[in-house]
């Protein structure tokens, strides 16, 4: 009889892992806590660097899914146990399954921007997050600030919740730099007269065509990049967000008004990923993401035989990297069953 694999989380990683596993001929159950698959990608308007619409990417990922994959939606995993050579996976609604292997594709949660109090998210109306902006793009609404005005200047703050030990996050979320560049370009496409500023600590244009997009942002869209981490923001009488940074390349503090300030929120491990990992006795590194057996050679294996990870639950990844990791996880599972 074909082996049964439970995949937890129907984001891009879960969908792609399930699709690949089904192609190997395994019985696959894909469990999702929400009523719809897609994870964060559902709300994402466009992907870097090609600006492919998020729904188009998601549609394509979903299309790969073999009908044989059993979808178990609206089920939040509350328990998992390794008994002999199989796993028992339990959902909050009483759903239960036995599996020969489990792949955790539980993804990430966005950093809660409220935690960077001094940036004023939730306090100053025109401070929003990158996810808010993405939703605004996806809604097709006009790009206005919360006072109903076209912002004359838009600021992007890189590394919000990333590389910041003040919020206990040492890690880099990888995708925010390029997302900021992408969103800055989209803003300029919608508001050609607006000035756009990116406040960064480092720019990490590590992927193919990212540097090109960055250059295009400078060359074609005149987007200004200021090296300096935001210290604090306040509001002026017109509802503009006044930000303070040091222009570190000039060595001078800088004060600048923005009509809309976008915080590039980073990735954090999900709270329930941590709980699940703890219960299973999985190692998670200090940043809370699950630690695979080896990050170079065995990036999908955990110390528990038969339990695998894929996607962003083991660290920040782009969609492209997530999909590759998901396919790699399916290979790892197949390899595991061979032994």
């Amino acid at each position, binding site marked *: 009889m074909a082996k049964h694999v439970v995949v937890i989380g129907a984001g891009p990683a879960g969908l792609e892992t399930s699709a690949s596993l089904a192609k190997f001929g395994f019985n696959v159950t894909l469990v999702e806590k929400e009523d719809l698959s897609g994870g964060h990608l559902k709300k994402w308007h466009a992907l870097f660097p090609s600006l492919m619409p998020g729904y188009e990417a998601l549609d394509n990922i979903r299309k790969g899914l073999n009908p044989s994959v059993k979808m178990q939606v609206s089920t939040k995993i509350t328990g998992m146990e390794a008994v002999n050579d199989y796993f028992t996976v339990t959902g909050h609604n009483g759903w239960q399954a036995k599996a020969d292997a489990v792949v955790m594709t539980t993804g990430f949660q966005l950093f809660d921007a409220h935690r960077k109090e001094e940036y004023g998210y939730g306090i100053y109306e025109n401070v929003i997050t990158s996810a808010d902006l993405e939703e605004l793009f996806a809604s097709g609404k006009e790009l206005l600030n919360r006072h109903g005005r076209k912002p004359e200047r838009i600021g992007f703050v890189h590394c919000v919740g990333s590389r910041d030990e003040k919020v206990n996050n040492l890690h880099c979320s990888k995708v925010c730099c390029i997302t900021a560049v992408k969103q800055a370009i989209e803003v300029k496409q919608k508001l050609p007269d607006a000035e756009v500023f990116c406040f960064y600590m480092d720019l990490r244009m590590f992927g193919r065509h990212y540097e090109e997009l960055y250059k295009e942002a400078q060359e074609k869209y005149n987007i200004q990049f200021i090296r300096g981490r935001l210290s604090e923001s306040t*509001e002026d009488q017109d509802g503009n967000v006044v930000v303070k940074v040091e222009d570190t390349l000039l060595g001078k503090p800088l004060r600048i008004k923005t009509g809309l300030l976008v915080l590039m929120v980073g990735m954090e491990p999900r709270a329930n990923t941590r709980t699940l990992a703890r219960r299973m006795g999985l190692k998670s590194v200090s940043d809370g993401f699950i630690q695979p057996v080896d990050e170079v050679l065995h990036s999908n294996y955990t110390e528990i035989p038969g339990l695998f990870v894929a996607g962003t639950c083991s660290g920040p990844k782009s969609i492209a990297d997530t999909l590759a990791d998901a396919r790699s996880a399916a290979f790892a599972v197949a390899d595991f069953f061979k032994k």
Partner: protein
Amino acid sequence: MKLEGKRLIWQDYQKEIADDHYFYARSCIRQTFFPGAEAVFVKILKDELGKDIHDNAHHTSCTGIGYHSDVVPFDTTMTVVARQFALMTEAGYENYAASCITSFGLYTEILETWHHFPETEARIREFLYKATRREFNKPKNLAHASDIIYKFRHQIAAKAKFKLVDKNTGEPLKVVEHIGCHYSKMFPHKGIGGAEYPYVLSGMIEAWGGEVVDYPERRHCCGFGFRQYLVQANRGFSISCSKKKFESMEPYEPDLIITNCPGCPMFLDRWQYALSEMEGKTYGKNNHGIPVFTYEEVAGMLMGYNPWEIGLQVHQVQAEPLLDKIGIPYDASQKFKGKNGEDIGIPESPSYLKFYAD
């Protein structure tokens, strides 16, 4: 601005404040600059709220000025503070109320140090014992005097004769709150509302009918900073800091500034004079300047205490326009009269800032 956003944050930064029986430690600076403020605090607590407050004559400076100016070693400071705690213990009190922000910050810092390094506490106990044969209990509750006024702000509002409201228009007054740096910037959880959006003074302003002004340089230092002012060569830096704040708040046309720190009201008040003499520039309407008060002085004003008895005449920026705006009566002829109607002398009139003397 979304107030509910700030409220969410304030929820995270609440602290225990004792209800009664305070051992009150006065402030070196405040006693000198605005002595009326501490007097009003004691008066309100005793007379209006019927609290037990012990005003001990034997306590000394906490050495905060010396400590922050790098002239007093930390061990010495801790031993002096231990003596204050001993006085509190000897007087039979457990709740320590500090008038000075720097003292409050220092006490907090010391208690935190002792918490993490019990051997340090033991050493200091030994020092104190050897030097004075005194022993002490650590305060059960440590509060800044403004925490206490914050705690009773609604009772005070209920008893007040006036509100922070323009009597002619009924509009709330626009109030700038300025929090002393040592209040919560070092230990955000020890201050009401935290460090980024402290609520301690905002809460009073709201309760007393005013409207809080959140202006871009709200977080900026008043410019006192012991090392800045005390070293004459650095005073230019001190005044420049104050100027930065005035320039930033000016467009909001604030009616007054409320502070909770010894140095801030002094410098925000006196530097307005110095700036006017140096640059010819005054802030506020009609060359009146922006009046700067302590939270106790404001509470006293609203209670209807005689402005001259609580010492408002010793402020550089004159209180009269604000008193008129709120509708608080005063006898102009008594402004510069001492306790028994004796003439205490009229100060020299500044060149640009408006000055009122009968």
